[in-house]
């Protein structure tokens, strides 16, 4: 009896082992199948017969709203927003998962790994990515995003009016463009007019712009503000994008396993520590997108300025400001930078290549549509000529919130001067973890070397394939 029981146990254990062994095989073969699937998908018979369902993966409703606003083929959208029907009967299914804790990427990765074996109507057709991790999906070896040319879009002619840096961002190491975006995210400096008047005696954007035009002058201005009891920015995280955008080498070079922390990042660390100790920054605000940070945008706050692209002004600042319109104004930042941006990719293995091409062109490359998005959603859109027109057209693009300023006038020169920092697939983790690790250092909890080693620990936890960290200087 006992023996029998034990043998049953052993059998179960064996079965478990083989079962799980089997489980791993389709997964890994599915991966390679996915890459080879590219060719059969676009050149094979798939293009003549389009699928009935277009699955779009995203982390919010931003893309869905813009597509419904400008794509002429849209017939209707279900009341809960999950299904959009096109005129020819094709259905767009919106699959939305939160960005938080990497859930979006987890679900997307799972779907991409199963892409080859999924039924046609379950295949991912379009997915979105953010600048911080766009490289993970445009990577040539990963093969998740179809090169635009294979889809029938010629980046040189069809996307000629797009800003160059957005095209570079969406390209792999060989310069093959694998995604496209409708928005650009050049950033500005947004300041409180009342504080500017109190400290500088003027709230004129041109004159305030002079006061913040580069970091050296900025520091003197910070001292002035401090003397009157104001903070220049709320948190050390506010200035991060300006520095991380101007690094000279990628965090990790393609094919290498060494993280290089750029001199610019070290500059940011030095400046943040100094500014926090001098009281130019609000010590009680730690990081961004938390309640302290939100409150720093309220009328009781002593914070002079924020560094924001268009979305930051419209969604963060506007929602958090509890005073009247016209209290804030924009001017040039101390350094040109770009923050954010959502890229649209055609997914390898899609059964709807024609629809996908059509959608990408309509939402990211049609000037009229883009200007419409700019008007309705205040996005700074990806059309050079269109944005220049907007910069001239003070009437149509005046912002009530900013006291009638035409923000496009300020955004356009910034956008034209952006040279995107060299990207790597590890940017998201590096950007997030370096801020976390040095936060304790800024607050005086740990010393500089400890912060360094905490970053090293955290980054290798996140990316096991990386082996060492090299610090500049």
């Amino acid at each position, binding site marked *: 009896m006992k023996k029998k029981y034990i043998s049953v146990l052993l059998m*179960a*254990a064996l*079965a*478990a*082992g083989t*079962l*799980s062994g089997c*489980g*791993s095989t389709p*997964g*890994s073969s599915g*991966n390679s199948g996915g890459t080879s699937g590219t060719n059969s998908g676009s050149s094979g018979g798939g293009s003549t017969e389009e699928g009935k369902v277009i699955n779009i993966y995203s982390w919010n409703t931003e893309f869905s709203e813009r597509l419904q606003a400008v794509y002429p083929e849209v017939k209707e959208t279900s009341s809960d927003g999950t299904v959009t029907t096109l005129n020819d009967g094709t259905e767009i299914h919106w699959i939305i998962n939160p960005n938080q*804790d*990497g859930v979006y990427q987890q679900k997307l*990765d799972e779907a*991409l*790994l199963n892409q080859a074996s999924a039924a046609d109507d379950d295949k991912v057709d379009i997915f979105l990515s953010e600048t911080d991790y766009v490289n*993970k*999906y445009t*990577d040539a*070896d*990963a093969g*998740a995003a179809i090169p635009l040319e294979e889809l029938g879009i010629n980046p040189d002619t069809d996307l000629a009016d797009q800003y160059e840096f957005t095209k570079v961002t969406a390209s792999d190491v060989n310069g093959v463009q694998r995604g496209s975006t409708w928005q650009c995210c050049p950033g500005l400096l947004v300041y409180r007019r009342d504080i500017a008047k109190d400290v500088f005696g003027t709230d004129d954007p041109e004159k305030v712009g002079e006061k913040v035009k580069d970091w050296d002058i900025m520091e003197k201005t910070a001292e002035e503000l401090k003397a009157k009891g104001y903070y220049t920015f709320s948190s050390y995280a506010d200035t991060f994008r300006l520095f991380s955008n101007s690094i000279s080498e990628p965090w990790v070079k393609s094919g290498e396993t060494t993280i290089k922390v750029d001199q610019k990042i070290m500059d940011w660390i030095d400046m943040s520590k100094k500014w926090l100790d001098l009281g130019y920054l609000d*010590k*009680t*605000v*730690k*990081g961004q997108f*938390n*309640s*302290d940070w939100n*409150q720093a945008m309220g009328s009781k706050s002593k914070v002079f300025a924020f560094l924001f692209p268009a979305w930051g002004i419209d969604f963060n600042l506007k929602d958090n400001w509890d005073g009247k319109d016209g209290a804030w104004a924009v001017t040039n930042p101390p350094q040109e930078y770009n923050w954010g941006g959502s890229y649209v990719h055609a997914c390898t293995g899609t059964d709807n290549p024609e629809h996908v091409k059509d959608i990408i062109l309509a939402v990211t490359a049609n000037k009229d549509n883009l200007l419409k998005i700019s008007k309705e959603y205040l996005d700074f859109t990806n059309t050079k000529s269109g944005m220049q027109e907007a910069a001239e057209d003070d009437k149509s693009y005046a912002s009530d919130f900013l006291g009638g300023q035409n923000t496009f006038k300020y955004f356009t020169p910034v956008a034209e001067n952006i040279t995107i920092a060299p990207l790597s*697939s590890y940017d998201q983790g590096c950007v997030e973890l370096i801020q*976390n690790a040095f*936060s*304790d250092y800024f*607050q005086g*909890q*740990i010393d500089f070397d*400890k912060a360094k080693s*905490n970053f090293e*620990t*955290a980054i290798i*936890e*996140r*990316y*096991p*394939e990386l082996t060492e960290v090299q610090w500049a200087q």
Partner: protein
Amino acid sequence: MKTKNKSIDYSKWGYIFILPFFISFFIFSFIPLADTIRYSFFEYYRSGIKEIGPNFVGMANYKNLLASDMLKYAGNTLILWVIGFIPQIVIALMLAAWFVDARLKIRGQQFFKVVIYLPNLIMASAFAMLFFTLFSTNGPVNGMLMSIGITKEPIDFTGTVFGTRSLVGLMNFLMWFGNTTIMLMAAIMGISADIFEASEIDGCNSIQRFFKITLPLIRPILAYTLITSIIGGLQMFDVPQILTNGQGSPDRTSTTLIMFLNNHLKSRNYGMAGALSVYLFIVSGILCFFVYRMTNNEDPDGSKAAAKKAKKAQRRG
């Protein structure tokens, strides 16, 4: 003859009754566990959307973990658990004893019982989020302290090791003391009223009664509380994760073992996560073995022996 047959029949019933449990366990826990253990010997992770491995690496994952800060996180977990558990068990025992003590005439018993259990109903994640907002440097708690005049500068609760750990402890305490109280109460009420009556006749005061009768008699349930709390403590994740936004700040002093595991799961590092899971499994096994031994050192039926002793004592007296 007849009785013999019957007893054989009964043992069959034992197997039948425990069968569903074991089938379910083998399918939903054992197979995944075997999977986890198997991969702990492999280098196996995701790089971007490419899968690396699985390549057999023997004990490398285990060695790497020992060389990492794992022990520090184990220490963090222990500290965070202790500062929540000690007040929890002390207060729960006290409350349970009060509630069943008819002479205290606690008014609104029903109300209090319902209220103290309430925090356990909130999702740990929602609770942690609420605390995060309340105790932020510009949050309502600081606002109140400053308006009463207790402090001039806002206190940076989550900026210090002491503050963060205390908040985690406080949250765990608030979430679980009601739960424990109800459980202990159920146990104390299960004790035969005769024993209490007898002890009263013998002239036991309430403190003696508590330590000499109540405590020994509810030992199985106490062991249960301790064990489940240790498991809960080992699994501590939601509260520190959300309070510190996953960073375990400051300086990773509130990073628990499961947060560490989560970091590996996040990078889809099945190998390291597997090895860490095996460590966790071993550690929790050892801990529970000790607790189990400690609370059952006399006989497996500790409660019955204690009850007999009490009865004997009362008969003698």
